Each structure stands twice: as structure tokens, then as C-alpha cells.
């Protein structure tokens, strides 16, 4: 694919990406899509909900782990995935491979995405559910918003749920 088949008169102008998972493989795709959208000049907002909040949580976003249990894509026996330390080892292995490809670690990636002008928002219901406050989140988070406010912000664009 070289992009030559892409019709130029039919473009996406805005995306709103919902991040609902707190695992490494749950968070990265959303970040790559948000960053890629901005690189194409597409407006992008990220809405972090449920365990996805870990991605913008000051104390937790440096410790995001790959899920090694219930993840058939890893091709590990289920019992092996549950061994102590397995998630850390696999996370380290994956992080090294990503580093080789110049994919930044999650905290750096999120900061970079904020710098591109994308908006980062936390979900009010999840913040209440987990007993969090504004201070638990990194400074780049613009606001804690309700689902209604999210929909208003997303109006006229595409919504991507991850």
C-alpha cells in the first residue's frame, strides 16, 4: 500500500478515541492511532475510561503491563502466563522491541501526543468509581468530563473505542 488509492476528497477531519483498557496492548493502539491522526492533520481527542485511566495516572502510567493471562495472542500455555513475574518479563521484552522500532514508552508517548495538540480527558464516572481526583492525573489531562460532554466534543467526527 502506498496510499495512492486513497480518495483525497473523502477525508476524516476529527477522531475521538476511547481508551477503556489498562494493559500495554490495550493502551498502545489508541496512542498510535491518536498520534497518527495528528500527524495527518486530523483533530484528535482521547477519552480515558475505566482501567484506561491508568494511562494518565501519575503513579501508574510508568508501570503498564502486558496481559499474559487470557491473552491467546501470546501463544503461551494459560498456566505459564500466570507464573509470578511472567507479566513483567513479557512487558520488558515487548518494551525492548518497541524501543528498537523507536516507539516511545507510554509516559513519553502521552506527553508527545498532548504536545501535538490532541486533548486528553478523563471519564467522570470512572474517576468517581475509583475514588480518584484531578491530582492523581498527569498535568497534560485537560479535564474530567461526563459522557454527555464527550459526545458533544465528538460531534461531527469519528468515534473509536479501544
Amino acid at each position, binding site marked *: 500500500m502506498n496510499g495512492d488509492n486513497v480518495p483525497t476528497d473523502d477525508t476524516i477531519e476529527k477522531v475521538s478515541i476511547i481508551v477503556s483498557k489498562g494493559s500495554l496492548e490495550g493502551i498502545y493502539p489508541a496512542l498510535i492511532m491518536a498520534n497518527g491522526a495528528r*500527524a495527518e492533520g486530523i483533530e484528535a481527542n482521547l477519552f480515558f475510561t475505566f482501567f484506561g485511566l491508568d494511562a494518565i495516572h501519575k503513579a501508574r502510567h510508568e508501570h503498564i503491563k502486558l496481559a499474559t493471562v487470557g491473552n491467546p495472542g501470546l501463544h503461551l500455555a494459560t498456566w505459564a502466563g500466570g507464573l509470578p513475574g511472567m507479566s513483567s518479563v513479557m512487558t520488558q521484552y515487548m518494551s525492548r522491541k518497541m524501543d528498537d522500532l523507536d516507539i516511545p514508552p507510554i509516559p513519553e508517548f502521552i506527553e508527545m501526543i498532548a504536545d501535538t495538540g490532541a486533548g486528553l480527558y478523563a471519564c467522570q464516572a470512572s474517576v468517581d468509581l475509583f475514588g480518584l481526583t484531578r491530582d492523581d492525573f498527569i498535568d497534560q489531562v485537560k479535564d474530567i468530563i461526563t459522557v454527555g460532554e464527550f459526545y458533544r466534543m465528538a460531534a461531527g467526527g469519528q468515534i473509536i473505542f479501544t
Partner: protein
Amino acid sequence: MPSKVYAGIEVAVDSEGFFTDPEQWREEMAPQIAAESGIDPVTERHWQVVKFMRHEYAEKGTGPSVRALSKTSGVTIKELYQLFPKGPAKLAAKIAGIPKPRGCI
């Protein structure tokens, strides 16, 4: 193959308007390409990035992604997006007359 006329010279471009032959590019074409992408005027800072894109292309055969562009040029991501709101690597490559960078990051 589509073509465009910049600075009075016909050049070959792809469907998105990127030069298919960077050898056809001349500095005096840059302001016109930039204006088509909504960048007017082309400032000294824009030029710095555009020249850097050409330099990287000449060295590596491909333009850098936004992150690599920021890391190696020393221009912050924030400023890159201020200079080129519709995508720094993409627009700077277009103005610099090189093919569109294909990185995902």
C-alpha cells in the same frame, strides 16, 4: 501520473500532491506549495524544517516521522505543530518536494 506547475516548471506529483521526483524541486517552488497547504508566509523557522527534511531524505532515502524530526532537528513537537498545523512531517515533506514519510509513529 498527475502533475503540477510550480515556479513555471511542470513537476510530477502523486495523488496527494507529493513530488515523485525530488530532483525536480527548486527552492523558489516552496512558497507556492506551502500556500496551497495553508502556510503563508514561509518563515525562517519553516525553512529550517523544510531544509532539514531534504537533508534527511538525501541521507536516508526517506523523510522522518514527526518524532524523529523533532528529535533530530531540535524543534519541539509543540512548535512543529504550530508551524505546520495540518501535520508537520507530512506538510514539510510536501513543501520540501520529497515523498510522504510512511512511518506510523
